């Protein structure tokens, strides 16, 4: 298993934990990652509102072109929901002849071209379909026995490119990973509601009103921890949890981990490799058996 790896900007800052944990987990699973050299920001969902749709898609496509040049015939994997949606949607456009032609004309300015030959895939897709639950199970050294895990998948990774690898309304891929690790996935209220993503900075009160019912839903289902694959979901549920408690007079202390961090712990890796110190709500109490 060998992939072009697109880390995305969050992996260099707010989601450093995900970056390091994924590299360690991939190594354990025998996944070879070739980080796309000189990758650029995918543009997220904000760029098209500033420059329009086409330039935003070309910005994303520069990464696809780099990947096709550096490691042809290997899929691109990304660990960020937003990057996945943006790169995946841009990739699909290359089947349209006019788009393909125009995008390549723009990419020529950086001596690049892209034929559309690669697939863009999300971490959970790789885990579900390429690695598979058996391999994950076989890699586990400290099964997560007795750990109740609220899996919060978030929106963009399942809803942007539909009919892809998971059900957009009732996603299962991450719960299957939790099961393979020996943990117990719990169903909880508001698990499919949006955390409001990037509004956290420009409209924090709105984000608080959205993260509160999600965290509270997980707490009411007696979850020990929340797990997510998405950098923005992780940040909003973790960094805004204390503020949401204050505003809504709750007392939730639910650690929020990336799924990669939880895998690292179950694979017997130490707490430093799992990046537990990056968590704002302390995970050490709930995860004392594994960290």
């Amino acid at each position: 298993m060998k992939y072009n790896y697109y880390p995305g900007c969050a992996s260099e800052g707010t989601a450093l934990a995900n970056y390091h944990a994924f590299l360690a987990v991939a190594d354990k699973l025998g996944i070879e990652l070739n980080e796309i050299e000189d990758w650029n920001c995918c543009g997220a969902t904000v760029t098209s509102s500033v420059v329009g749709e086409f330039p935003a898609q070309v910005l994303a496509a520069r990464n696809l072109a780099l990947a096709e040049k550096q490691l042809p015939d290997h899929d691109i994997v990304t660990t960020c929901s937003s990057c996945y949606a943006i790169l995946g949607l841009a990739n699909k456009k290359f089947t349209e002849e006019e788009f393909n032609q125009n995008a390549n004309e723009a990419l020529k300015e950086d001596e690049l071209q892209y034929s559309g030959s690669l697939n863009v895939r999300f971490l959970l897709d790789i885990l579900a379909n390429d690695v598979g639950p058996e391999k994950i199970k076989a890699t586990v050294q400290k099964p997560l026995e007795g750990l109740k895990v609220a899996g919060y998948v978030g929106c963009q990774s399942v809803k942007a490119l539909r009919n892809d690898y998971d059900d957009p309304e009732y996603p299962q891929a991450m719960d299957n990973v939790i099961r393979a690790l020996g943990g117990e996935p719990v169903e909880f209220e508001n698990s499919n509601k949006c955390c409001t993503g990037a509004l956290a900075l420009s409209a924090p009160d709105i984000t608080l009103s959205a993260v509160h019912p999600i965290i509270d839903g997980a707490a009411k289902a007696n979850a020990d921890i929340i797990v997510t694959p998405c950098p923005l979901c992780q940040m909003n549920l973790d960094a805004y949890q204390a503020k949401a408690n204050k505003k809504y007079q709750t007392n939730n202390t639910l650690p929020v981990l990336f799924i990669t961090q939880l895998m690292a712990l179950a694979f017997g890796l130490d707490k430093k490799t799992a990046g537990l110190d990056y968590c704002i709500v302390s995970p050490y109490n709930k995860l004392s058996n594994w960290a």
Partner: protein
Amino acid sequence: MSGADVVRKYDPEFTKKVYEMDNGKWVKMCMQCGICPTTCTLKGIMDHSPREIIQLIRAGDKEQVLKSNTPWMCTSCYTCSCRCPRGVPMMDVMHDLRHLAEEEGNITNQTHMAKVYYNDVAKRGRIWEGGLTMKYGLKLGIGNAFKMALDMQDVGMAMFKHKRLAVFPPKGVKNPAKLRAVLDKAAALAKEEG
């Protein structure tokens, strides 16, 4: 002012302009079934539901559409487009409307945020999340920036303490000038295509 005194202007040119935008064809596709507001994350905060926005575009009510907070409150969660019987990618329509609102000078906090974000992409090729917060604060003006810093100091400090806000920018792309050339070329091609 009573309702009867309000003169609403309808501008068919505005409708045409939206139809010609990247996702204008989808505005025509909407059948007003009302699924989108029932699924929308922030419908309670929007001053017009996504369905209403579509109808206002068709009516040519430029003012209501462009001053609405709806496009800016869309979180791009893609839930409505999942459930839309006609597959309308509503968030893409909303992105078009943001672009149009900005051209018309309707500026919101989210406009500032988008601008700051894009400037970082164009300058460095990658986002420096720590710097983004500061630059966004400066855009708001000193008074608002101070208020934001005060409101958000707990979140900011927690992020900083857990080493999640890079104090210095991580490296960008090797040749940002070439990246800008790609973006400029793409913008020029988009303009040509109309």
